[in-house]
Protein backbone atom coordinates (compact mmCIF):
# COMPACT_ATOMS: atom_id res chain seq x y z
CA UNK A 1 0.00 0.00 0.00
CA UNK A 2 1.18 3.52 -0.74
CA UNK A 3 1.68 5.43 2.45
CA UNK A 4 1.33 9.18 2.77
CA UNK A 5 4.06 11.12 4.47
CA UNK A 6 2.72 12.73 7.60
CA UNK A 7 4.97 13.81 10.44
CA UNK A 8 1.97 14.21 12.73
CA UNK A 9 1.84 10.42 12.88
CA UNK A 10 4.47 10.80 15.58
CA UNK A 11 1.70 11.84 17.98
CA UNK A 12 0.03 8.48 17.47
CA UNK A 13 3.25 6.68 18.25
CA UNK A 14 4.00 8.82 21.29
CA UNK A 15 2.18 6.67 23.94
CA UNK A 16 4.13 3.60 22.86
CA UNK A 17 7.33 5.59 22.88
CA UNK A 18 6.81 6.87 26.42
CA UNK A 19 5.82 3.47 27.76
CA UNK A 20 8.69 1.62 26.14
CA UNK A 21 11.11 4.33 27.22
CA UNK A 22 9.96 3.78 30.79
CA UNK A 23 10.05 0.00 30.67
CA UNK A 24 13.12 -0.49 28.48
CA UNK A 25 15.34 2.54 28.20
CA UNK A 26 15.50 3.49 31.89
CA UNK A 27 16.35 -0.05 33.05
CA UNK A 28 18.89 -0.41 30.25
CA UNK A 29 20.56 2.84 31.32
CA UNK A 30 20.85 1.44 34.86
CA UNK A 31 22.60 -1.58 33.43
CA UNK A 32 24.97 0.58 31.40
CA UNK A 33 25.64 2.64 34.51
CA UNK A 34 26.63 -0.38 36.60
CA UNK A 35 28.71 -1.87 33.84
CA UNK A 36 31.23 0.95 34.03
CA UNK A 37 31.35 1.47 37.78
CA UNK A 38 32.56 -0.32 40.88
CA UNK A 39 31.38 0.01 44.45
CA UNK A 40 32.54 -0.65 48.01
CA UNK A 41 28.94 -0.70 49.18
CA UNK A 42 26.88 2.14 50.74
CA UNK A 43 25.88 3.30 47.30
CA UNK A 44 29.28 4.88 46.65
CA UNK A 45 30.26 4.23 43.08
CA UNK A 46 33.38 5.08 41.14
CA UNK A 47 34.37 4.80 37.51
CA UNK A 48 35.71 1.40 36.57
CA UNK A 49 36.03 1.90 32.84
CA UNK A 50 36.15 -1.27 30.84
CA UNK A 51 37.57 -3.42 33.60
CA UNK A 52 34.41 -5.49 34.08
CA UNK A 53 34.32 -6.28 30.39
CA UNK A 54 37.99 -7.24 30.42
CA UNK A 55 37.48 -9.46 33.46
CA UNK A 56 34.53 -11.19 31.88
CA UNK A 57 36.13 -11.74 28.50
CA UNK A 58 39.04 -13.36 30.32
CA UNK A 59 36.85 -15.57 32.48
CA UNK A 60 36.42 -19.22 31.61
CA UNK A 61 32.96 -19.26 33.24
CA UNK A 62 31.44 -16.85 30.74
CA UNK A 63 32.95 -18.57 27.72
CA UNK A 64 31.79 -21.98 28.92
CA UNK A 65 28.24 -20.71 29.34
CA UNK A 66 28.47 -19.06 25.93
CA UNK A 67 29.61 -22.25 24.18
CA UNK A 68 26.90 -24.25 25.94
CA UNK A 69 24.36 -21.68 24.78
CA UNK A 70 25.57 -21.81 21.17
CA UNK A 71 25.49 -25.61 21.27
CA UNK A 72 21.97 -25.59 22.70
CA UNK A 73 20.58 -23.12 20.15
CA UNK A 74 22.30 -24.90 17.24
CA UNK A 75 21.02 -28.34 18.26
CA UNK A 76 17.42 -27.28 18.80
CA UNK A 77 17.37 -25.33 15.51
CA UNK A 78 18.82 -28.33 13.68
CA UNK A 79 16.06 -30.55 15.05
CA UNK A 80 13.07 -28.22 15.16
CA UNK A 81 13.30 -26.66 11.70
CA UNK A 82 13.37 -29.90 9.64
CA UNK A 83 10.89 -31.59 11.98
CA UNK A 84 8.58 -28.58 11.83
CA UNK A 85 8.67 -28.63 8.01
CA UNK A 86 7.92 -32.35 7.94
CA UNK A 87 4.97 -31.90 10.28
CA UNK A 88 3.66 -28.94 8.27
CA UNK A 89 3.82 -30.95 5.02
CA UNK A 90 1.84 -33.77 6.60
CA UNK A 91 -0.87 -31.66 8.18
CA UNK A 92 -4.39 -31.96 6.76
CA UNK A 93 -4.97 -28.96 4.50
CA UNK A 94 -8.47 -28.06 5.57
CA UNK A 95 -11.54 -29.29 7.36
CA UNK A 96 -12.23 -30.42 10.89
CA UNK A 97 -9.01 -32.41 11.29
CA UNK A 98 -6.91 -29.43 10.29
CA UNK A 99 -8.51 -27.43 13.12
CA UNK A 100 -7.97 -30.26 15.59
CA UNK A 101 -4.30 -30.46 14.61
CA UNK A 102 -3.90 -26.70 14.94
CA UNK A 103 -5.42 -26.65 18.41
CA UNK A 104 -3.54 -29.68 19.77
CA UNK A 105 -0.25 -28.46 18.33
CA UNK A 106 -0.68 -25.02 19.85
CA UNK A 107 -1.28 -26.41 23.31
CA UNK A 108 2.39 -26.74 24.40
CA UNK A 109 3.01 -23.16 23.25
CA UNK A 110 0.46 -21.81 25.72
CA UNK A 111 1.69 -23.54 28.86
CA UNK A 112 3.52 -21.33 31.39
CA UNK A 113 7.24 -21.94 31.02
CA UNK A 114 7.86 -23.17 34.53
CA UNK A 115 4.99 -25.62 34.14
CA UNK A 116 6.70 -26.89 30.98
CA UNK A 117 9.77 -27.41 33.15
CA UNK A 118 7.72 -29.12 35.83
CA UNK A 119 6.01 -31.42 33.32
CA UNK A 120 9.34 -32.64 31.97
CA UNK A 121 10.99 -32.79 35.34
CA UNK A 122 8.29 -35.21 36.43
CA UNK A 123 7.99 -37.01 33.08
CA UNK A 124 11.69 -37.86 32.92
CA UNK A 125 12.01 -39.03 36.52
CA UNK A 126 12.95 -42.66 36.90
CA UNK A 127 10.63 -43.33 39.84
CA UNK A 128 7.38 -41.55 38.94
CA UNK A 129 7.78 -40.36 35.32
CA UNK A 130 6.54 -42.30 32.34
CA UNK A 131 9.59 -41.58 30.16
CA UNK A 132 12.24 -42.19 32.81
CA UNK A 133 10.48 -45.31 34.06
CA UNK A 134 10.14 -46.76 30.58
CA UNK A 135 13.77 -46.08 29.72
CA UNK A 136 14.83 -47.62 33.01
CA UNK A 137 12.64 -50.66 32.41
CA UNK A 138 14.28 -51.38 29.04
CA UNK A 139 17.67 -51.09 30.67
CA UNK A 140 18.84 -47.58 29.78
CA UNK A 141 20.26 -45.72 32.72
CA UNK A 142 18.67 -42.29 32.66
CA UNK A 143 19.28 -39.88 35.50
CA UNK A 144 19.16 -36.26 34.48
CA UNK A 145 20.25 -34.94 37.87
CA UNK A 146 23.52 -36.90 37.79
CA UNK A 147 24.35 -37.67 34.21
CA UNK A 148 25.60 -35.02 31.78
CA UNK A 149 24.07 -36.59 28.66
CA UNK A 150 20.75 -37.38 30.30
CA UNK A 151 20.43 -33.76 31.43
CA UNK A 152 21.18 -32.42 27.95
CA UNK A 153 18.88 -34.89 26.21
CA UNK A 154 16.08 -33.97 28.62
CA UNK A 155 16.31 -30.22 28.04
CA UNK A 156 16.65 -30.66 24.27
CA UNK A 157 13.69 -33.03 23.98
CA UNK A 158 11.75 -30.65 26.21
CA UNK A 159 12.50 -27.72 23.92
CA UNK A 160 11.63 -29.76 20.83
CA UNK A 161 8.35 -30.71 22.49
CA UNK A 162 7.68 -27.12 23.49
CA UNK A 163 8.52 -25.22 20.31
CA UNK A 164 8.53 -27.46 17.21
CA UNK A 165 4.85 -26.63 16.77
CA UNK A 166 5.77 -22.97 16.31
CA UNK A 167 7.96 -23.80 13.31
CA UNK A 168 5.30 -26.19 12.01
CA UNK A 169 2.51 -23.61 12.35
CA UNK A 170 4.49 -20.95 10.52
CA UNK A 171 5.55 -23.33 7.76
CA UNK A 172 1.92 -24.44 7.48
CA UNK A 173 0.80 -20.82 7.13
CA UNK A 174 3.34 -20.46 4.30
CA UNK A 175 2.06 -23.60 2.56
CA UNK A 176 -1.53 -22.37 2.81
CA UNK A 177 -0.66 -19.36 0.68
CA UNK A 178 0.27 -21.52 -2.33
CA UNK A 179 -2.53 -21.49 -4.93
CA UNK A 180 -3.82 -24.87 -6.12
CA UNK A 181 -2.86 -23.98 -9.69
CA UNK A 182 0.83 -24.42 -8.80
CA UNK A 183 0.26 -28.03 -7.76
CA UNK A 184 -1.84 -28.72 -10.83
CA UNK A 185 0.91 -27.36 -13.06
CA UNK A 186 3.42 -29.58 -11.29
CA UNK A 187 1.16 -32.57 -11.83
CA UNK A 188 0.90 -31.85 -15.57
CA UNK A 189 4.71 -31.63 -15.70
CA UNK A 190 4.85 -34.90 -13.77
CA UNK A 191 7.14 -33.34 -11.23
CA UNK A 192 8.43 -35.65 -8.49
CA UNK A 193 7.46 -35.12 -4.87
CA UNK A 194 10.94 -33.77 -4.18
CA UNK A 195 10.71 -31.34 -7.11
CA UNK A 196 7.37 -30.07 -5.84
CA UNK A 197 8.93 -29.43 -2.46
CA UNK A 198 12.15 -27.94 -3.83
CA UNK A 199 10.65 -25.61 -6.44
CA UNK A 200 7.14 -24.82 -5.17
CA UNK A 201 6.76 -25.38 -1.47
CA UNK A 202 10.19 -24.43 -0.19
CA UNK A 203 10.49 -21.04 -1.91
CA UNK A 204 7.01 -20.11 -0.67
CA UNK A 205 7.90 -21.20 2.84
CA UNK A 206 11.22 -19.42 2.93
CA UNK A 207 9.83 -16.10 4.16
CA UNK A 208 7.96 -17.56 7.12
CA UNK A 209 10.78 -19.99 7.83
CA UNK A 210 13.10 -17.03 8.30
CA UNK A 211 10.68 -15.65 10.88
CA UNK A 212 10.52 -19.05 12.57
CA UNK A 213 14.30 -19.34 12.70
CA UNK A 214 14.63 -15.77 13.98
CA UNK A 215 12.09 -16.38 16.75
CA UNK A 216 13.53 -19.75 17.71
CA UNK A 217 17.06 -18.37 17.76
CA UNK A 218 16.06 -15.40 19.91
CA UNK A 219 13.98 -17.37 22.36
CA UNK A 220 16.35 -20.28 22.70
CA UNK A 221 19.23 -17.87 23.23
CA UNK A 222 17.49 -16.28 26.19
CA UNK A 223 15.88 -19.43 27.59
CA UNK A 224 15.86 -19.49 31.36
CA UNK A 225 12.85 -20.90 33.15
CA UNK A 226 12.45 -24.33 31.56
CA UNK A 227 15.98 -25.72 31.94
CA UNK A 228 16.28 -24.01 35.32
CA UNK A 229 13.23 -25.85 36.64
CA UNK A 230 14.39 -29.20 35.24
CA UNK A 231 18.09 -29.24 36.05
CA UNK A 232 18.83 -26.02 37.94
CA UNK A 233 21.84 -25.64 35.66
CA UNK A 234 23.33 -28.96 36.76
CA UNK A 235 24.70 -31.54 37.07
CA UNK A 236 27.61 -29.33 38.05
CA UNK A 237 27.42 -26.58 35.46
CA UNK A 238 26.49 -28.88 32.58
CA UNK A 239 23.29 -27.07 31.62
CA UNK A 240 24.10 -23.57 32.91
CA UNK A 241 23.08 -21.55 29.88
CA UNK A 242 23.73 -17.81 29.56
CA UNK A 243 20.54 -16.60 31.25
CA UNK A 244 20.87 -19.04 34.13
CA UNK A 245 24.44 -17.88 34.68
CA UNK A 246 23.41 -14.23 34.49
CA UNK A 247 20.58 -14.56 36.99
CA UNK A 248 22.92 -16.44 39.33
CA UNK A 249 25.39 -13.57 39.08
CA UNK A 250 22.92 -10.68 39.32
CA UNK A 251 20.26 -11.84 41.78
CA UNK A 252 22.11 -14.65 43.54
CA UNK A 253 25.53 -13.12 44.18
CA UNK A 254 24.48 -9.51 43.57
CA UNK A 255 27.67 -8.83 41.58
CA UNK A 256 26.24 -5.74 39.92
CA UNK A 257 29.23 -4.71 37.81
CA UNK A 258 30.04 -8.03 36.16
CA UNK A 259 26.35 -8.86 35.79
CA UNK A 260 25.69 -5.55 34.04
CA UNK A 261 28.66 -5.96 31.72
CA UNK A 262 27.49 -9.50 31.02
CA UNK A 263 23.97 -8.21 30.26
CA UNK A 264 25.24 -5.68 27.75
CA UNK A 265 27.35 -8.16 25.85
CA UNK A 266 24.55 -10.72 25.94
CA UNK A 267 22.02 -8.24 24.55
CA UNK A 268 24.44 -7.08 21.86
CA UNK A 269 25.03 -10.62 20.61
CA UNK A 270 21.28 -11.28 20.30
CA UNK A 271 20.77 -7.90 18.68
CA UNK A 272 23.51 -8.43 16.11
CA UNK A 273 22.30 -11.87 15.03
CA UNK A 274 18.66 -10.78 14.98
CA UNK A 275 19.52 -7.77 12.88
CA UNK A 276 21.09 -10.02 10.25
CA UNK A 277 17.98 -12.21 10.19
CA UNK A 278 15.74 -9.18 10.08
CA UNK A 279 17.59 -7.71 7.10
CA UNK A 280 17.38 -10.99 5.21
CA UNK A 281 13.68 -11.19 6.11
CA UNK A 282 12.79 -7.72 4.89
CA UNK A 283 14.78 -8.27 1.69
CA UNK A 284 12.80 -11.47 1.06
CA UNK A 285 9.61 -9.47 1.66
CA UNK A 286 10.66 -6.93 -0.93
CA UNK A 287 11.58 -9.62 -3.45
CA UNK A 288 8.18 -11.27 -2.95
CA UNK A 289 6.42 -7.94 -3.43
CA UNK A 290 8.02 -7.42 -6.81
Amino acid at each position, binding site marked *: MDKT*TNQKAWFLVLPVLILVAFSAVIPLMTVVNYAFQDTFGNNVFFWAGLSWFEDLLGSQRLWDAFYRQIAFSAIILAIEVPLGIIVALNMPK*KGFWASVCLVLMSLPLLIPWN*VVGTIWQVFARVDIGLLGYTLDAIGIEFNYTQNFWAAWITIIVMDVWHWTSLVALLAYAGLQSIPDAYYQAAKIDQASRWAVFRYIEFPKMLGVLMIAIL*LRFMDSFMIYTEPFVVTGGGPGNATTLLSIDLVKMALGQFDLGPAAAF*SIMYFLVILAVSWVFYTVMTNLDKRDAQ
Partner: protein
Amino acid sequence: MADATATRAETRSLSLPRVNGRAVVMILYLVFLMLPIYWLLNMSLKTNSEILGGLTLWPQTLTFANYVTILTDPAWYMGYVNSIIYVTMNTVISVTVALPAAYAFSRYNFMGDKHLFFWLLTNRMAPPAVFALPFFQLYSSVGLFDTHIAVALAHTLFNVPLAVWILEGFMRGVPKEIDETAYIDGYSFPRFFVKIFMPLVASGIGVTAFFCFMFSWVELLLSRTLTSVDAKPIAATMTRTVGASGVDWGVLAAAGVLTIIPGALVIWFVRNYIAKGFALGRV
Protein backbone atom coordinates in the same frame (compact mmCIF):
# COMPACT_ATOMS: atom_id res chain seq x y z
CA MET B 1 -15.14 -29.68 -14.80
CA ALA B 2 -13.19 -32.88 -14.25
CA ASP B 3 -10.60 -30.82 -12.42
CA ALA B 4 -13.14 -29.45 -10.02
CA THR B 5 -14.47 -32.91 -9.16
CA ALA B 6 -10.96 -34.23 -8.65
CA THR B 7 -10.13 -31.38 -6.28
CA ARG B 8 -13.32 -31.92 -4.33
CA ALA B 9 -12.72 -35.66 -3.99
CA GLU B 10 -9.19 -34.99 -2.85
CA THR B 11 -10.40 -32.54 -0.23
CA ARG B 12 -12.85 -35.03 1.14
CA SER B 13 -10.30 -37.79 1.44
CA LEU B 14 -7.87 -35.43 3.19
CA SER B 15 -10.39 -34.49 5.81
CA LEU B 16 -10.85 -38.13 6.83
CA PRO B 17 -8.23 -39.99 8.86
CA ARG B 18 -7.17 -42.72 6.44
CA VAL B 19 -4.32 -45.08 7.08
CA ASN B 20 -1.72 -43.26 5.07
CA GLY B 21 1.70 -41.78 5.57
CA ARG B 22 0.46 -38.34 6.39
CA ALA B 23 -1.88 -39.52 9.11
CA VAL B 24 0.81 -41.72 10.66
CA VAL B 25 3.29 -38.83 10.86
CA MET B 26 0.67 -36.52 12.36
CA ILE B 27 -0.54 -39.08 14.89
CA LEU B 28 2.99 -39.87 16.02
CA TYR B 29 3.73 -36.18 16.45
CA LEU B 30 0.50 -35.46 18.33
CA VAL B 31 1.05 -38.44 20.63
CA PHE B 32 4.52 -37.09 21.37
CA LEU B 33 2.95 -33.72 22.23
CA MET B 34 0.13 -35.11 24.33
CA LEU B 35 1.99 -37.77 26.36
CA PRO B 36 3.60 -35.41 28.91
CA ILE B 37 0.33 -33.49 29.30
CA TYR B 38 -1.57 -36.75 29.79
CA TRP B 39 0.95 -37.73 32.43
CA LEU B 40 0.47 -34.45 34.31
CA LEU B 41 -3.31 -34.83 34.20
CA ASN B 42 -3.02 -38.46 35.29
CA MET B 43 -0.86 -37.49 38.28
CA SER B 44 -3.17 -34.68 39.33
CA LEU B 45 -6.00 -37.19 39.80
CA LYS B 46 -4.00 -39.59 41.97
CA THR B 47 -3.19 -39.65 45.65
CA ASN B 48 0.44 -39.12 46.62
CA SER B 49 0.77 -42.69 47.88
CA GLU B 50 -0.35 -43.97 44.49
CA ILE B 51 2.04 -41.66 42.63
CA LEU B 52 5.00 -42.82 44.69
CA GLY B 53 3.76 -46.39 45.05
CA GLY B 54 4.32 -47.46 41.48
CA LEU B 55 3.60 -46.63 37.88
CA THR B 56 -0.08 -46.71 36.95
CA LEU B 57 -1.31 -45.54 33.58
CA TRP B 58 -4.58 -44.20 34.98
CA PRO B 59 -5.68 -43.36 38.52
CA GLN B 60 -6.70 -46.50 40.43
CA THR B 61 -8.31 -44.45 43.18
CA LEU B 62 -9.66 -41.40 41.42
CA THR B 63 -9.39 -38.33 43.65
CA PHE B 64 -10.10 -34.65 43.23
CA ALA B 65 -8.53 -33.84 46.59
CA ASN B 66 -5.56 -32.13 44.91
CA TYR B 67 -7.85 -29.69 43.12
CA VAL B 68 -9.91 -29.13 46.27
CA THR B 69 -6.72 -28.22 48.14
CA ILE B 70 -5.90 -25.55 45.58
CA LEU B 71 -9.38 -24.11 45.21
CA THR B 72 -10.06 -23.82 48.95
CA ASP B 73 -6.71 -22.50 50.22
CA PRO B 74 -6.35 -18.71 49.69
CA ALA B 75 -2.56 -19.03 49.62
CA TRP B 76 -3.06 -21.17 46.52
CA TYR B 77 -5.95 -19.64 44.65
CA MET B 78 -4.77 -16.08 45.28
CA GLY B 79 -1.86 -17.02 43.04
CA TYR B 80 -4.33 -17.45 40.17
CA VAL B 81 -6.15 -14.25 41.08
CA ASN B 82 -2.88 -12.29 41.13
CA SER B 83 -1.79 -13.72 37.79
CA ILE B 84 -5.14 -12.90 36.21
CA ILE B 85 -5.09 -9.33 37.60
CA TYR B 86 -1.66 -8.38 36.26
CA VAL B 87 -2.18 -10.22 32.98
CA THR B 88 -5.45 -8.38 32.37
CA MET B 89 -3.91 -5.01 33.26
CA ASN B 90 -1.03 -5.72 30.92
CA THR B 91 -3.35 -6.71 28.06
CA VAL B 92 -5.44 -3.56 28.42
CA ILE B 93 -2.39 -1.27 28.59
CA SER B 94 -0.61 -2.97 25.68
CA VAL B 95 -3.56 -2.99 23.29
CA THR B 96 -4.61 0.58 24.16
CA VAL B 97 -1.24 2.18 23.45
CA ALA B 98 -0.53 -0.09 20.50
CA LEU B 99 -3.73 0.74 18.57
CA PRO B 100 -2.86 4.32 17.50
CA ALA B 101 0.79 3.41 16.95
CA ALA B 102 -0.08 0.46 14.72
CA TYR B 103 -2.42 2.74 12.75
CA ALA B 104 0.38 5.25 12.26
CA PHE B 105 2.81 2.55 11.07
CA SER B 106 0.28 1.03 8.69
CA ARG B 107 -0.85 4.33 7.11
CA TYR B 108 1.89 6.93 7.21
CA ASN B 109 5.52 7.48 6.41
CA PHE B 110 7.20 9.62 8.98
CA MET B 111 10.70 10.51 10.04
CA GLY B 112 12.44 7.47 11.53
CA ASP B 113 9.46 5.14 11.17
CA LYS B 114 11.48 2.13 10.02
CA HIS B 115 14.09 2.55 12.75
CA LEU B 116 11.38 2.93 15.35
CA PHE B 117 9.66 -0.21 14.13
CA PHE B 118 12.87 -2.23 14.39
CA TRP B 119 13.72 -0.67 17.75
CA LEU B 120 10.36 -1.88 19.06
CA LEU B 121 11.25 -5.38 17.90
CA THR B 122 14.57 -5.25 19.76
CA ASN B 123 12.60 -5.05 22.99
CA ARG B 124 11.04 -8.38 22.12
CA MET B 125 14.59 -9.69 21.74
CA ALA B 126 15.79 -8.43 25.10
CA PRO B 127 16.46 -11.37 27.43
CA PRO B 128 14.26 -11.04 30.54
CA ALA B 129 17.29 -12.09 32.56
CA VAL B 130 18.99 -8.83 31.51
CA PHE B 131 16.05 -6.81 32.79
CA ALA B 132 15.36 -8.71 36.01
CA LEU B 133 17.79 -6.76 38.20
CA PRO B 134 17.18 -3.23 36.83
CA PHE B 135 13.41 -3.78 36.97
CA PHE B 136 13.72 -4.91 40.57
CA GLN B 137 15.62 -1.73 41.44
CA LEU B 138 13.44 0.59 39.37
CA TYR B 139 10.16 -0.63 40.82
CA SER B 140 11.55 -0.83 44.34
CA SER B 141 12.73 2.78 44.17
CA VAL B 142 9.33 4.08 43.07
CA GLY B 143 7.55 1.99 45.69
CA LEU B 144 5.80 -0.34 43.27
CA PHE B 145 7.57 -3.55 44.28
CA ASP B 146 5.13 -6.42 44.89
CA THR B 147 2.20 -4.70 43.17
CA HIS B 148 0.23 -5.95 40.18
CA ILE B 149 0.87 -2.82 38.17
CA ALA B 150 4.65 -3.34 38.43
CA VAL B 151 4.42 -6.74 36.75
CA ALA B 152 1.91 -5.40 34.21
CA LEU B 153 4.28 -2.56 33.26
CA ALA B 154 7.30 -4.87 33.19
CA HIS B 155 5.54 -7.19 30.76
CA THR B 156 4.77 -4.31 28.40
CA LEU B 157 8.48 -4.61 27.55
CA PHE B 158 7.74 -7.48 25.18
CA ASN B 159 3.96 -7.19 24.81
CA VAL B 160 3.75 -3.65 23.42
CA PRO B 161 6.07 -4.43 20.48
CA LEU B 162 4.13 -7.64 19.92
CA ALA B 163 0.81 -5.79 19.94
CA VAL B 164 2.06 -3.09 17.56
CA TRP B 165 3.42 -5.68 15.12
CA ILE B 166 0.34 -7.92 15.09
CA LEU B 167 -2.10 -4.99 14.81
CA GLU B 168 -0.05 -3.44 12.04
CA GLY B 169 -0.34 -6.72 10.15
CA PHE B 170 -4.13 -6.66 10.44
CA MET B 171 -4.51 -2.94 9.70
CA ARG B 172 -2.48 -3.20 6.50
CA GLY B 173 -5.30 -5.36 5.15
CA VAL B 174 -7.92 -2.60 5.52
CA PRO B 175 -8.16 -0.51 2.34
CA LYS B 176 -7.07 3.07 2.76
CA GLU B 177 -10.08 4.33 0.79
CA ILE B 178 -12.22 3.71 3.86
CA ASP B 179 -10.21 6.28 5.85
CA GLU B 180 -10.40 8.81 3.05
CA THR B 181 -14.16 8.40 2.57
CA ALA B 182 -14.73 8.86 6.31
CA TYR B 183 -12.67 12.06 6.39
CA ILE B 184 -14.61 13.42 3.40
CA ASP B 185 -17.83 12.60 5.25
CA GLY B 186 -16.61 14.90 7.99
CA TYR B 187 -15.52 12.43 10.62
CA SER B 188 -12.84 13.67 13.02
CA PHE B 189 -9.90 11.32 13.56
CA PRO B 190 -10.86 10.04 17.04
CA ARG B 191 -14.48 9.51 16.01
CA PHE B 192 -13.47 7.74 12.79
CA PHE B 193 -10.98 5.56 14.67
CA VAL B 194 -13.40 4.39 17.36
CA LYS B 195 -16.64 4.24 15.34
CA ILE B 196 -15.44 2.92 11.99
CA PHE B 197 -11.88 1.67 12.06
CA MET B 198 -11.86 -0.33 15.29
CA PRO B 199 -14.89 -2.44 14.36
CA LEU B 200 -13.15 -3.22 11.04
CA VAL B 201 -10.09 -4.63 12.79
CA ALA B 202 -12.07 -6.19 15.66
CA SER B 203 -10.76 -9.68 14.97
CA GLY B 204 -7.22 -8.31 14.91
CA ILE B 205 -7.76 -6.65 18.27
CA GLY B 206 -9.12 -9.91 19.68
CA VAL B 207 -6.14 -11.89 18.43
CA THR B 208 -3.71 -9.27 19.75
CA ALA B 209 -5.37 -9.34 23.16
CA PHE B 210 -5.14 -13.12 23.18
CA PHE B 211 -1.41 -13.03 22.50
CA CYS B 212 -0.72 -10.31 25.05
CA PHE B 213 -2.64 -12.38 27.58
CA MET B 214 -0.74 -15.52 26.64
CA PHE B 215 2.77 -14.11 26.71
CA SER B 216 2.16 -12.38 30.02
CA TRP B 217 0.66 -15.58 31.42
CA VAL B 218 3.59 -17.84 30.48
CA GLU B 219 6.36 -15.50 31.65
CA LEU B 220 7.77 -16.23 35.09
CA LEU B 221 11.23 -14.75 35.58
CA LEU B 222 10.14 -11.10 35.69
CA SER B 223 6.86 -11.65 37.53
CA ARG B 224 8.66 -13.71 40.18
CA THR B 225 11.44 -11.16 40.59
CA LEU B 226 9.00 -8.26 41.03
CA THR B 227 6.71 -9.85 43.61
CA SER B 228 7.03 -11.38 47.06
CA VAL B 229 3.66 -11.83 48.75
CA ASP B 230 0.78 -9.61 47.66
CA ALA B 231 1.06 -10.03 43.91
CA LYS B 232 2.76 -13.42 43.74
CA PRO B 233 1.85 -15.23 40.50
CA ILE B 234 0.56 -18.80 40.46
CA ALA B 235 3.68 -20.01 38.71
CA ALA B 236 5.80 -18.89 41.68
CA THR B 237 3.27 -20.23 44.19
CA MET B 238 3.91 -23.70 42.78
CA THR B 239 7.24 -23.86 44.61
CA ARG B 240 5.18 -24.16 47.81
CA THR B 241 4.61 -27.83 47.10
CA VAL B 242 8.21 -28.54 48.12
CA GLY B 243 7.83 -29.06 51.85
CA ALA B 244 9.74 -30.67 54.69
CA SER B 245 8.19 -34.05 53.91
CA GLY B 246 9.18 -33.95 50.25
CA VAL B 247 7.29 -32.76 47.19
CA ASP B 248 3.49 -32.84 47.14
CA TRP B 249 3.36 -34.23 43.59
CA GLY B 250 -0.40 -34.46 43.31
CA VAL B 251 -1.00 -30.81 44.16
CA LEU B 252 1.91 -29.72 41.97
CA ALA B 253 0.38 -31.57 39.02
CA ALA B 254 -3.09 -30.17 39.71
CA ALA B 255 -1.70 -26.62 39.86
CA GLY B 256 0.04 -27.25 36.55
CA VAL B 257 -3.15 -28.50 34.91
CA LEU B 258 -5.03 -25.42 36.13
CA THR B 259 -2.47 -23.10 34.48
CA ILE B 260 -3.02 -24.81 31.12
CA ILE B 261 -6.80 -24.28 31.19
CA PRO B 262 -7.03 -20.55 30.29
CA GLY B 263 -5.04 -21.12 27.08
CA ALA B 264 -6.88 -24.31 26.23
CA LEU B 265 -10.27 -22.58 26.62
CA VAL B 266 -9.78 -19.83 24.07
CA ILE B 267 -7.41 -21.43 21.62
CA TRP B 268 -10.21 -22.79 19.42
CA PHE B 269 -11.31 -19.23 18.59
CA VAL B 270 -7.88 -18.05 17.50
CA ARG B 271 -6.70 -21.27 15.82
CA ASN B 272 -6.55 -19.72 12.35
CA TYR B 273 -4.55 -16.72 13.53
CA ILE B 274 -2.14 -18.51 15.80
CA ALA B 275 0.71 -18.55 13.28
CA LYS B 276 0.19 -14.86 12.58
CA GLY B 277 0.30 -14.04 16.27
CA PHE B 278 3.46 -15.98 17.02
CA ALA B 279 5.13 -14.44 13.99
CA LEU B 280 4.34 -10.92 15.27
CA GLY B 281 1.78 -10.32 12.54
CA ARG B 282 4.20 -11.08 9.73
CA VAL B 283 2.55 -14.10 8.11
